[in-house]
């Protein structure tokens, strides 16, 4: 095999391996515990913090602040809590939850590409 083809073959295989490792073997994030019943979540290329832990049975307010212009992130969907909210750019949108069930609940953008997680724990 010619040297350029060998190089491209290695480049392609390396690219595939890197993509797999980088996106699909992401270590699990540590949950950020909500203090004072309120937490700010920045919406920019995903959700920061991505995993939050909230107590069962207590009202908790999540303030979403969307900085990302992508229309992908213009809605946040908390399907398990039956909430779909439009997030205007550069504005805070508050969602108050009083979870009644312990567990891990996924939330996503309107197109289901970006994911965050709410862990409901015993208060």
């Amino acid at each position, binding site marked *: 095999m010619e040297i350029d083809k060998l190089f491209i073959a290695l480049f*392609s295989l390396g690219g595939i391996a890197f993509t797999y490792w980088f996106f699909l073997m992401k270590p699990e994030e540590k949950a950020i515990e909500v203090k004072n019943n*309120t937490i700010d979540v920045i919406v920019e290329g995903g959700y920061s913090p991505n995993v939050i832990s909230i107590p069962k049975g207590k009202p908790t307010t999540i303030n979403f602040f969307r900085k990302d212009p*992508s229309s992908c992130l213009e809605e946040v969907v908390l399907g398990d809590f039956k909430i779909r909210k439009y997030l205007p750019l550069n504005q805070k949108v508050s969602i108050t939850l009083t979870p009644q069930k312990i567990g891990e609940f996924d939330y996503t953008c309107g197109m289901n590409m970006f994911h965050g997680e709410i862990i409901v724990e015993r208060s």
Partner: protein
Amino acid sequence: MTEIKESFPIKGTHCASCVRVTERALKKVPGVTEAVVNLATEKATVTYDSDSCTREQLADAVTKIGYRLELEEKGEELAQAEKQKELQLLRNKVILSLFLGGLILWGSFPGLMNTAPPLLHNFWLQLLLAIPVQFWAGSEFYKTAISAFKHRTSNMDTLVALGTTVAFVYSAFITIFPQAFMNLGVEIMPYFDVATIVIGLILLGRYFEAKAKAGTSGAIKKLIGLQAKTARVLRSSSVIPNKAQESQTTQSLKHHSGARSFHVGRDDKYVEIDIPIDQVEIGDILRVRPGEKIPVDGEIIEGESSVDESMISGESIPVDKTKGDKVIGATINKSGTFIYKAMKVGSDTLLAQIIKLVEQAQGSKAPIQRLADTVSSYFVPIVIMLAFATFGIWYIFGAEPVFLYAMLNTVAVLIIACPCAMGLATPTAIMVGTGKGAENGILIKDAESLETANKIDTVVFDKTGTLTKGKPEVTDVIRIKNHESSIKDEKGLLRFAASIEKGSEHSLAEAIVKKAEESKLVLSTVEGFNAIAGYGVKGIIGSKNVHFGNKRLMEREEIKIHKQVQDDIEKLENEGKTVMLLAVDKKLFGLIAVADTIKDTAKESVAVLKKKGIDVVMITGDNQRTANTIAIKVGIEKVFAEILPQEKEEIVKKLQGLESGIMIHDSRPHVVAFVGDGINDAPALATADIGIAIGTGTDVAIEAADITLINKDLRSVASVIELSQKTMRTIKLNLFWAFGYNIILIPVAMGLFYPFFHILLNPIFASVAMASSSISVVANSLLLKRVNLAKIKE
């Protein structure tokens, strides 16, 4: 001094320190006695003397410290304005990128370039034209892709950013270092047209998609728009010092609850004041004129009219209303003027509840979405891996010029992949479907209910209050003759029965008490009243033990029923009447027959359901004969009679096959919908696969029910099933299209068909396909708006 407590939205506060600073600034305004800022709700609640300071002064004080106090709640309007601003910017980007991209395409596309001015053939000019498109119009792809990369995640923007960057960088290098590429034997041909047109077309797709998506949530906007903005409240004129203070200081008529006559005008007893809807309080007395919107829910205390409730119930015929009738906020008063008392305001009104329910349904996820959820979480990384593979395979095994083919096919793979269509396939259809239901007076609790309704094969109707009007009337009062008793005539019998039933909430009791009132009978005091669910009631009148209820109560109490009485009971029951027996001191004294009227839409509803191949079952606490008579009248063959309220749940379970001993005609488990009015049947509503509550019912019923028919139209049961079937068909078509599109076109873009058919996909066509795939999914969902639920009823 006029002290007012008012809440204002506050903008810009992000922390506890902002809260303290804002509170301090507000408290410094002369006249403010209290100011509390809530960070979570972003609201400031201020108590102030309106003689000493104005709302504008409060706003100024907050503005001076760098935050914003809004004098008017914008909410939805603000979000809409922001959305409009974003759309405007997107439109500008589309126009610029397609214009500049078009010029580049004109100057570089084979065949077309011969007609272009020579200046456009210049690669440097093309680079210059491409820069604003790539880095301004396409900036949002970069912003999201980079932010996502930091989170080790990806989305469609990642693919577009990668694809267009490859095309742009390749073209820029060719323009800047042509000699180096010539030495490598690569043709000097930049592809700025690919980068720019792809960005322009994808942005155009997003623009149309945003427009179309706005249509999917149209039902909510329509419902919010129904809300009246102001209310005309009647206030006592004697306590209104001047017009400026009218809305805040006057004493409302609610303190004069005994008032019966109302006079309008400043010189009279009361004046009319227009106030914002959010200032209406429970107990306020309001006047509504013909053609006006009814502001909040309440009860008419004077006047009569006909009211158009179509916007809430979907029923097009106006409803006549008179004193004592309930009116619903946001409905339109057609003919007369009336005065009514506000009973529910703010978030408690029926309209607010409907909006909340529809919003919740639209925010929920349908089980069918799970597959798309799983696929889309792996989709983008897999496409990137396929793009790397495409590049390598084409470079190593592809046709000459290998580098060019490898690059263009890689770009095509990145551009054509469309995860958005998969993400939009289910929620857009659910949003349109639930909205369509709400427009027709059908409230669907969540997406799962809408999905399950599609599979219903058995509908169980509760009889009383559901198939019948639930307002029975006394038809026969029969005293048992030749009996030594203190009950001398039928009136005496009715008086005893009505006395003991006065404490009961059963609909039959209501009929008996009403009949006694019509006969102007004086009722006796009852001691030790006890309702025995499914049997009747008992109590003590004077010193006598009285039992009043069905035959089973008599059997339970071991009260003998003679043959003649048995015959009477049988005769009345054969006529579809419910017979109640009265026993005093364990001796039978007489019987009272009560009959209920079948609802106008019951027969039609059953016929439509049967036509759809659905088993229809009736369930009732009535005896078999009465039940059969009603069932025959409405066209139901399968009847469960003499069922105690708590047994309804068991029957539903048996039909579902969850318990042994399935009682229906076959042995297979069924998907069961239970239709009830919510009184006594909340457990059955909750147990059924789909619980359908008729009317606004009780709060318990709405909570237990999956679907509430606020239009009270039984034919809507068939509409629910039809709507569910149509929505599911749309979702399946959307998913088929979204998956099929990617499964077929990604291999085409990779060039897998090239060896056999010499088919390759130009990245520009890939972008057209990609943009149209999301739009087509949203557009297909919007087609659900055309479903005619009224026609289904026929």
